[in-house]
């Protein structure tokens, strides 16, 4: 049963990913990315990590995708973006990605099934993650808020009207 769902969600993830690359319309590509990310979130559920799954949906499929779509609508790129001519960079990309694909496939084929590890019932739960965030990772967690604050200030500063006397 678990195996069935694993393959189902993997299929969703992969077909979404293929559509992202293959679809000629940019907006549809972005939508396909949501499908792919949804599949990844489901895989996290299977791995007993419901918190990460929720975050995956909320942040990636939600917030970041909205950002993507904003950018796409702002820039309004032409729909025909499939590269016809093979450039040197493209060739290099194909070489590297096929090399990585070969390594991955070889690795999966020769993969030994690891012994099962017992995990506590609340592993990956909200409670567990929250406790970690506010004990071991307290300092980085709190300091990240400063990073976000700097980013917000930056957005305001860089987005404001020109300085009086400033050249543009």
């Amino acid at each position, binding site marked *: 049963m678990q195996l069935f769902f694993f393959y189902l969600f993997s299929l969703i993830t992969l077909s979404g990913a293929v559509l992202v690359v293959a679809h000629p319309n940019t907006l549809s590509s972005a939508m396909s990315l949501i499908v792919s990310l949804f599949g990844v979130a489901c895989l996290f559920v299977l791995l007993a990590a419901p918190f990460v799954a929720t975050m995956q949906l909320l942040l990636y499929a939600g917030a970041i995708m909205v950002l993507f779509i904003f950018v796409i609508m702002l820039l309004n790129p032409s729909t025909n973006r499939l590269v016809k001519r093979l450039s040197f960079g493209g060739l290099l990309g194909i070489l590297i990605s096929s090399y990585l694909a070969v390594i991955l496939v070889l690795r999966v084929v020769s993969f030994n099934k690891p012994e099962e590890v017992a995990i506590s019932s609340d592993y990956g739960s909200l409670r567990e993650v929250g406790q970690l965030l506010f004990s071991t990772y307290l300092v*980085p967690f709190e*300091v990240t808020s400063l*990073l976000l604050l700097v980013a917000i*200030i*930056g957005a305001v*500063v*860089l987005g404001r009207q020109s300085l*009086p006397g*400033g*050249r543009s």
Partner: protein
Amino acid sequence: MTILFLAMAKALAPFLALVLSGLLLLIVTAFLPKEKTRLLFYPTLLALAGTTILVATNWVDGFPLEGGMVISDRIAYGFDLVFLLSVFLSTILSRETEEGNAHGGEYYVLTLFATAGMVLMAHSRDLLLLFIALEIMSLSAYILTSYRQSAKGAEAGMKYFVMGAFASGFLLYGIALIYGATGSTDFSVITQAGAGATGNSLWLIRIGVALLLIGFGFKIAAVPFHFWAPDVYEGAPTPVTALMASGVKAAGFVALVRLVIAFAPFTALPWVKILSVLAFLTMTIGNLIALKQTNIKRMLAYSSIAHAGYALVGLAASIKNGQIQEEALAAVLFYMFAYSLMTIGAFAIVVAMGRKGDEVDEIGDYAGLSEHHPALAAAMALFMISLTGIPPTLGFIGKFYLLRAAVSSGLIGLTVVAVLNSVISAFYYLSVVMVIYFQKEKGYRLPQLSYTLLFAVSFTAMAVIYLGLFPEELFQVAKQSFQAVVF
């Protein structure tokens, strides 16, 4: 739990002081009338001075404080002093430029947050925290770079941002590999786990460390990761350039120093060779390209690359037969301090040459400075001599300590290269002096000097001479910072 929090807060005190004052200023900015925001200059300096006093007393106390992922030892406090000094001086410079007087006090807030990021970098005992601290510093620096809304500033900021993000990618990949091999991002756990690591996991750690070196190499603008620096230094407002050349660079070096202390003993990488090659390339290429520059900010940018190379010589000398040499690391700290003083002094004069709103960047514009303003000309000559490394200036002493450490670690070849490089650098530093003293002026406008700017120039000039004559005490401070290094 409360005790843990208290310990953490105490260890983080300099960081917290900077962040809190930054937040306070941010709130004040919102309520100040727009013309008044330039007044934030004073509380910013006050906050920096207060933090400096806090750091200095903590350094004197000398007890390493620990809490969470934070370590507050003398290494951290020693580098904190370099950061705070360079931010203090470059903030003084910014009063003379458009940015410091711009409507909206975000400039000062971001300066404080950038400093907080640098301080946190020095205090991190954990790769995760180190990374977040680096991002706080870098993000603030990107914004400050394009604070002036001109095409050049925007280009510089964008370039800096993209290259910085690229470097962050290397860092994160490296951290991930090290975490994969050791199961922790904490330096002390990594050193313990790494000591027993063999085979594949040792290789993972090695590759991870190499990626970290590349990432921090970008931050200190070491060759071959330097190509962003000249454009960014040229396009940024001059006070921000001064900050990037001093504080941000020193922050990259504190990370490298921690890296060497944590990883050099057990990874069995050819550390000395790697760092020597890096130092050789950085010095030589920085100096050779600087020869051809006609823009003073670009010249100082390449000079800054070259000086990172000299400091890398000290880092290469800090490892001898797998043992950490405290004296060499102390020389690196000392050099960061010395270089920050000299280069900020030089940038102060670049600021002085321009009036509010426009900068005078060409070296040719300095012709005839000696007639109009002999004191300013003398100060510029002093900084150029010091950057070259001619006695009796601080620049000479800094190089002397570095090269002494290199010789005692047996890096004779690298020492010779460094000396030859100083000779090369004399060509372009002294040609600025020649222009100032021996070239006829061409339509030169006398800059108006304010008291704050005069303070910055005279303070750095006096420090360069005084510490050049009596460096011993300061070097003792640097040396004691590295006594009994542990994680």
